[in-house]
């Protein structure tokens, strides 16, 4: 290859390519046309300002749940609770937007967003506190907290926010909404809202936090080696709680922005929001790099939005898109093989030690 590619890009790029090939093979096996489907997917995601607006809007919660997962992972924790934290954030933002509607618009928006982030943050910090003081596995606690949030929010929406016999809260006032005429005009009335801009800014903030800030340095150190961090005088317990708090704040923010910008209300749901889990995939694809998250969330969002057009123009089940997504992450997981294959061309192979942290330790 003459093309010079930055080495950290090789794995994600190869993985994406391989994932699409797997998807194409599966489509061929079942007699569908991959080229037609991929082109309708592309059209659905980028084929006009409206589609682009939808794709960018859909990126917003993905970015934030991905960043949330990335922060916890960098600190050495497997925060599988993004869904619950997102849901709490959504709920918190809508509750404040509805109950404090007497506030002026700008203040109402800020307070609602902060309330949502805080709901998510506190929800996640519970797991952090239990981990720091009792050593309780965050894998279990975040799973349990997911379900608690699901049933709690359903109960609160049905018995408190919604009117009798309804499963949804009323819509928030227009002044509390993150949608704006400018963005709607720009994107042919798509649901793109200002939350998108906030999410992009947060990516850069988190990058700066990881790489330039004292607290981010401590978080990474604790994530790599708790004993060494303690030896260096870092407050490990504080860092653990802090990392889980930030992680949840981000996922909660994702829920808040989605609630205020996209949904405008909150409804009873049967299952936990999928976006919490999708965020994990987004973060994994770029190895928790906050700037990379922008690109990978664009890809996943495009797959989701574009995927909806697949079944419009053919009878291919839309789940093919999720198969492609899962395959991409599978190839990221076996990056050792990708590195082996791409390095074979170079002269000196580097030895890499691989050690993973177990769940439930």
């Amino acid at each position, binding site marked *: 290859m003459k093309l010079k590619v930055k080495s950290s890009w090789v794995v994600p790029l190869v993985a994406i390519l391989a994932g699409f090939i797997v998807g194409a093979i599966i489509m061929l096996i079942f007699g569908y046309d991959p080229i037609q489907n991929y082109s309708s997917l592309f059209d659905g995601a980028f084929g006009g300002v409206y589609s682009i607006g939808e794709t960018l809007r859909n990126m917003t919660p993905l970015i934030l749940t991905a960043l949330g997962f990335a922060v916890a992972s960098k600190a050495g924790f497997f925060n599988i609770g993004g869904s619950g934290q997102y849901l709490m954030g959504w709920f918190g933002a809508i509750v404040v937007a509805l109950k404090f509607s007497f506030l002026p618009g700008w203040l109402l928006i800020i307070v609602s967003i902060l309330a949502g982030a805080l709901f998510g943050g506190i929800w996640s910090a519970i797991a952090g506190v*239990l981990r720091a003081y009792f050593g309780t*596995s965050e894998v*279990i606690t975040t*799973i349990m907290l997911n379900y608690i949030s699901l*049933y*709690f929010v359903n109960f609160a929406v049905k018995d408190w926010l919604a009117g009798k016999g309804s499963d949804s809260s009323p819509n928030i006032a227009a002044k509390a909404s993150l949608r704006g005429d400018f963005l709607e005009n720009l994107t042919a009335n798509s649901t793109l809202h200002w939350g998108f801009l906030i999410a992009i800014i947060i990516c850069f903030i988190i990058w700066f936090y990881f790489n330039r800030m004292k607290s981010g340095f401590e978080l990474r150190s604790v994530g790599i080696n708790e004993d060494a961090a303690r030896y260096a005088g870092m407050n490990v317990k504080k860092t653990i709680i802090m990392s889980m708090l930030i992680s949840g704040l981000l996922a909660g923010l994702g829920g808040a922005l989605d609630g205020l910008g996209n949904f405008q209300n909150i409804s009873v749901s049967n299952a936990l929001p999928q976006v919490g889990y999708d965020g994990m995939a987004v973060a994994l694809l770029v190895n928790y790099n906050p700037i990379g998250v922008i690109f990978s969330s664009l890809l996943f969002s495009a797959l989701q939005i574009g995927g909806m057009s697949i079944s419009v123009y053919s009878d291919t*089940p839309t789940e093919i898109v999720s198969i492609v997504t899962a395959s991409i992450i599978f190839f990221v*997981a076996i990056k*050792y093989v990708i590195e082996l294959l791409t390095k074979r061309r170079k002269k000196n192979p580097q030895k890499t030690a691989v050690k993973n*942290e177990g769940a439930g330790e």
Partner: protein
Amino acid sequence: MNLSTTLMTILSTTLVYAAPLIFTSLGGTFSERSGIVNVGLEGMMVVGAFSSSIFTLSFANALGDAAPWVSFLVGGAFGCLFSVLHAVATVSFRADHIISGTVLNMLAPALCVFLTRIFYDGKGQTPEISQGLGTVTVPGLSKIPFIGKVFFTQTSMVAWAAIVVAIVCWYVLYRTGFGLRLRSVGENPAAADTLGINVYRYRYLGVLISGFLGGLGGAVMAQSITLSFSISTISGQGFMALAAMIFGKWNPLGAMGAAVFFGLAQSLPIIGAYIPGLSGINSVWFQVAPYLITIIVLVLFLGKSVGPAADGENYIKSK
């Protein structure tokens, strides 16, 4: 309702909800005892639920009464096949175990619903299964006063089977050479290697057994609770099973105990209505209770549970 009927109802529902968790948590135990972290149990259950549903819908007539049990095993077989992905990724290709497990959880529902749509004209849900692994009343034994009523009336045979399997799993892990070797590669693969134990082979076996048991767990879910397959057939049971495994300290009997406890907790919303004094409580508390209780019990009584020493570590043999 008298005492024996109340107890019978509690035990029966508990067992029905516990059975999928018992099988799956036992699966997790095998995988993690061999050193491979398995957060992909959920995905394995999805595949088990899907394949057994499809099988029983296709062959129920041909197989007659045996159909539910055969399709139960078919679920295990496909779960096992699916787990090959996790084994190859983690054991041979040095993947991060958690990432690989997450892939299983993403891939399984996508693939299974995709196939369901292909098999059933674009519908994301299979038709209802006519013969499932329901509850049975054991002839003879159910006539024993009190005990017969509580334990052998309208009871879940598959749950009792799960308990027997748990005991067998314990025996295999703690009394046989195979079990000793499997546990050794999860504790210190380098040491096992020096004794000529093929670390990779035992880790593959650990994951494949886990896939089989996880598949059984999913099959039970579809055959005795949801009675069809759709995206919501498996909604978090795999994660509950993972929790049961950790709760049970990676021991088959412990995992079974935890699974039965979760089963009891999950059946609370259903049986709450039958228990005097509990019927007035808002159902949200019963829904939240299993998860809340799990957290409280973990914090108060277990704290940091310690798994196999080399769980999650890839073993790279130097040549």
